[in-house]
């Protein structure tokens, strides 16, 4: 690997001061993307800033009123091993078990999945469906942005100079709320999504009050299909409403043809996965 320096700051402020003025510095969480990219020379890096000794980046705590705080460096195995996550956000526990294989899940974090900013990131559509917010820290202080605004292009995001992702905040699930993520891969496990759909529903008195749909691998960024969610508000959960949302998801997608699938196939998958994920979420509500 190319030479780089290594620092393991103990606080967010120390990390920001290390990153500030060093455009060649990169934050290390699980390393399952970053170290591969440095070794293959897809990324140059003069300073690796290990975030795993910063308490805020390791925080995993649930409060029934405030929701979940998920530190940016918390590895997948801690997420699906956490009782509160499994009970309040079963979809999040499930998606943490979808990323890579067992040994990758021992290191890889959901925060890293977001910061790597791949259009195919499995966790990101679900985070959008869950209404997650990113807490960022930088030289100018902190700011909060919605996950759907975070990624700006393949491999790019809105993190500015000296800025890092500290944690994700996921609202507490309201009564009647459920979320689900489904992806299509040609194998059983350990593959990159040809397409994926993350959805959430809030059903009250037999009516959908609120819904969100987001898609993987069908746009330059993980795509928030706002219209697909809005198409469901006020409807009775069932085949007709889910069909309309699935068609809105298909229309929102702007995929490319590559080795994993064609434009036509991916659009088709968007509709099928959105419908099936909505059906699964609706089943979970009851």
């Amino acid at each position, binding site marked *: *690997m*190319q*030479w*780089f*320096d*290594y620092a*393991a700051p103990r606080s967010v402020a120390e990390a920001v001061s290390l990153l500030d003025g060093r455009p060649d510095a990169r934050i*290390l969480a*699980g*390393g*399952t993307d970053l*170290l*591969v990219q440095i*070794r*293959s020379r897809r990324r140059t890096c003069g300073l*690796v800033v*290990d975030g*795993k000794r910063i308490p805020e980046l390791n925080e995993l705590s649930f409060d029934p009123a405030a929701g979940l705080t998920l530190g940016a460096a918390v*590895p997948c*195995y801690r997420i699906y091993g956490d009782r509160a996550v499994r009970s309040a956000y079963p979809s999040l526990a499930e998606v943490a078990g979808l990323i*890579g*294989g*067992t*040994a*990758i899940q*021992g*290191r890889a974090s959901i925060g890293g999945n977001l910061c790597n900013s791949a259009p195919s990131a499995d966790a990101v559509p679900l985070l959008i469906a869950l209404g997650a917010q990113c807490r960022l820290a930088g030289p100018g202080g902190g700011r909060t942005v919605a996950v759907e605004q975070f990624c700006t292009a393949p491999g790019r995001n809105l993190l500015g100079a000296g800025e890092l992702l500290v944690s994700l905040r996921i609202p507490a699930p309201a009564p009647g709320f459920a979320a689900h993520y489904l992806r299509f891969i040609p194998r*059983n*496990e*350990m593959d990159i999504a040809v397409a994926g759909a993350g959805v959430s529903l809030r059903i009250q008195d037999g009516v959908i009050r609120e819904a969100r749909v987001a898609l993987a691998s069908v746009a330059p960024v993980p795509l928030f299909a706002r219209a697909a969610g809005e198409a469901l508000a006020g409807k009775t959960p069932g085949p007709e409403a889910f069909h309309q949302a699935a068609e809105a998801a298909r229309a929102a997608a702007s995929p490319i043809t590559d080795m994993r699938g064609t434009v036509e196939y991916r659009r088709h998958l968007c509709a099928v996965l959105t419908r099936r994920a909505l059906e699964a979420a609706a089943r979970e509500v009851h």
Partner: protein
Amino acid sequence: MQSKVHVRTAINGEPAEFLCEPRQSLLECLRDLCNLTGTKEGCNDGNCGACTVEMDGRIVTSCLVLGVEAEGAQIGTVEGLARGTELHPLQKAFLENAALQCGICTPGFLVAAKALLEQEPEPSEARIRLWLANNLCRCTGYDKIIRAVQQAAREMKEARP
């Protein structure tokens, strides 16, 4: 430019230290600096699992861990499985079931399977296959490996008081 870093860690329960460059992977540190060559390099990008080791109670691909990250950690490698000349039940079961041919993937399978059986003493076949999906073998076709893990699970269960 930073000089080498002095790393204090524990490998297979014994205190260990090494002097490494920040860019050296834990895999390189184990093999080249600690002389623990049981852990193998396969793909060197996290896909094949040949370099799987235990780190603070969970398994990781050591090619995607920096040696400097091992500071203060507990590392477990394939060298820690046998007790003296007494092989671990998984090692015996791998031999008895011919669950290896060239052997490059074997240390990774053993370390990963040991972690599974410690967490879940009676995993289903599907669970074993999913857990070991991070480990590739181009010789056996996997069936013999799965049978060996199942046999070791049975024997470890019988051996428990």
